[in-house]
């Protein structure tokens, strides 16, 4: 097998709190292959965005630290790389799209200025060439009347159009990995469908890998080939998309799917996972999902479960279920 594009190994990210350093992400390991489409799903505090930001080392220094782990990209550990090297990678090799397109765009610069920035920086383009390229990119992300829109300011655009601009900026230098963190969460459902379709088409056209982060299992199911489920800072399950949705193995994955209201009818009463998501600095013995788990056994409270491969491309962090998978 070819070596992965990005490889995250045992990543632990800590945040400073009043009570010392708390693990926001703990022992996260996964690879992203060239051209792969990985979905990361989880609720607030699951560590999905923290993991994504770590790949580009975008956490504020002093507030966060990487206590263990390595993120390798093109033979380098991004956690150890110099700021200079990172600046060369950000926006060129690895680009990111965030949830809120209004706060990600600079309100006092035109669309042209903002798309040109990375083209001029990374590819040394002239102002005129960058402008031409910016118009092409706006066409590519299907903004009508691109030649006119390129000179407008962000406030003139709707939320959906702004997110298209963000995507245009992200793909300007043809990155090998696009990280999209809840790219459609702030958008209306018909616009969400348009943006997801656009991302799907661009991925096929440009052959880049995409890491899509979402809390919405529906978005993940439509977009990803492989899904990583995170809970309270840890990966609890990692499986191909059809396997995960047909036969989820982790009790949290099951609970998440059951608590989603179904559009196509179904039960009158929603399944609710009891309890609440623990805080990062909360100590829980054994499995962090244990206190909310309907299938908890004594062993779950004594030893923290390990993430173990139970089938080809399927990893699971659940002691009883891993054992059951072994027996069959």
């Amino acid at each position, binding site marked *: 097998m070819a070596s992965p594009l990005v490889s995250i190994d045992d990543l632990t990210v800590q945040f400073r709190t009043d009570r010392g350093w708390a693990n926001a992400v703990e022992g996260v390991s996964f690879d992203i292959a060239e051209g792969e489409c990985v979905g990361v799903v989880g609720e607030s505090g699951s560590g999905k965005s923290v993991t994504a930001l770590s790949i580009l080392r975008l956490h504020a220094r002093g507030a966060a630290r990487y206590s263990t782990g390595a993120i390798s990209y093109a033979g380098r550990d991004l956690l150890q790389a110099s700021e200079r090297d990172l600046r060369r990678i950000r926006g060129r090799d690895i680009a990111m799209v965030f949830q809120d397109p209004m706060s990600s765009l600079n309100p006092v610069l035109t669309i042209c200025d903002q798309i040109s920035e990375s083209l001029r920086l990374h590819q040394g383009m002239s102002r005129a060439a960058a402008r031409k390229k910016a118009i092409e990119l706006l066409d590519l992300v299907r903004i009508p009347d691109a030649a006119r829109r390129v000179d407008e300011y962000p406030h003139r655009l709707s939320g959906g159009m702004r997110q298209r601009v963000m995507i245009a900026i992200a793909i300007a230098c043809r990155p090998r990995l696009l990280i999209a963190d809840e790219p459609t969460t702030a958008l209306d*459902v018909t616009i969400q469908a348009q943006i997801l379709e656009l991302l799907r088409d661009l991925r096929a056209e440009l052959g880049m890998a995409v890491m899509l982060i979402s809390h919405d299992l529906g978005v993940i199911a439509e977009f990803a080939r492989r899904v990583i489920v995170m809970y309270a800072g840890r990966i609890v399950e990692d499986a191909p998309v059809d396997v995960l949705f047909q036969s989820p193995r982790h009790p949290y994955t099951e609970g998440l799917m059951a608590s989603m209201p179904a559009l196509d009818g179904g039960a009158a009463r929603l399944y*609710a996972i009891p309890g609440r998501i623990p805080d990062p600095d909360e100590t829980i013995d054994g499995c962090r999902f244990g206190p909310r788990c309907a299938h908890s056994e004594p062993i779950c409270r004594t030893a923290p479960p390990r993430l173990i491969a139970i089938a080809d491309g399927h990893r699971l962090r659940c002691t009883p279920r891993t054992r059951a998978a072994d027996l069959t």
Partner: protein
Amino acid sequence: MADDALVEVRDLDMAFNVGKARARRTTLQVLRKLSFDVGRGETLGLVGESGSGKSTAGRILVGLFEPTGGSVKLFGRTITGPERKANLAAVRSRVQFVFQDPHAALNPRMRVGDSIAEPIDIAGAHTRRDRSHRVKELLEMVGLPRDAAERFPHEFSGGQRQRIVIARALALEPGFIVCDEPVSALDVSMQAQVVNLLMDLQTKFGIGYLFIAHDLAVVRAVAQRVAVIYAGSIVEIASKDALYEQPQHPYTQALLDAVPRPDPARVRGPVIGGEVPSLLAPPPGCRFHTRCPHAMPRCQVEEPRLRETAPGRQTACHLYETL
């Protein structure tokens, strides 16, 4: 049934004046000729995208905005027109509101118990013991521990805070609650808890809800009937199953098609293009015709009226007039 309607809305219009400079001032017609009922113990879902006017409608129903046209009856009393003030005062305690963001809806410097008791304090006539007894009762109703009364909002998660907001809404035993996106700020696992709570409270106390949301799946779980609103007008109203299983209006169909399903094997149909039109320059005729796959020449000039297409269901679309 008119006699057990909690809420009767007829031809509701709402326009806002926008623009600061006098020369540039225009009116923004946010709602046009909205008509619907909510029965006792019933949930009407109101579904639409941002800017459709769904929150404005909710605010009018609790008396926060005075509409520019049409009438609203709550518990049989007209809260629009000349008797607005007196009638609103008479029904106010029986109408409550649950907002989207429980962080913003609670005063961070007030103890939870005091927040919950505030409506009781305003309504007056209670002893201190009654008050604290009632607060504990309300906390129990929404599944929070009794000692929560002494704590502050920041000590609670989003889901728990929304329970506090619901407890406060229940304080005066309302007959009707407007829930404006009550679970959209919550995580999926918390969403289910709050949705179930709202439904249990309805069964127990016979409360009617106007449930405003953009999430069609959540609305399917809670509502008995659903109204779909687009650019300020209701385009379709039907019983839940009829609307979800056989949507009539092309916009309802597009909306349902656009929702991502947790099924990787699903083959998605064509995605609807375009965006919701600006209310400052709405298209003539049917406001959806610019995005509609079935648009006919007539749709560009003549606005369809909401009319009955089957018993208990109404649709505003020329397609169903020719049938």
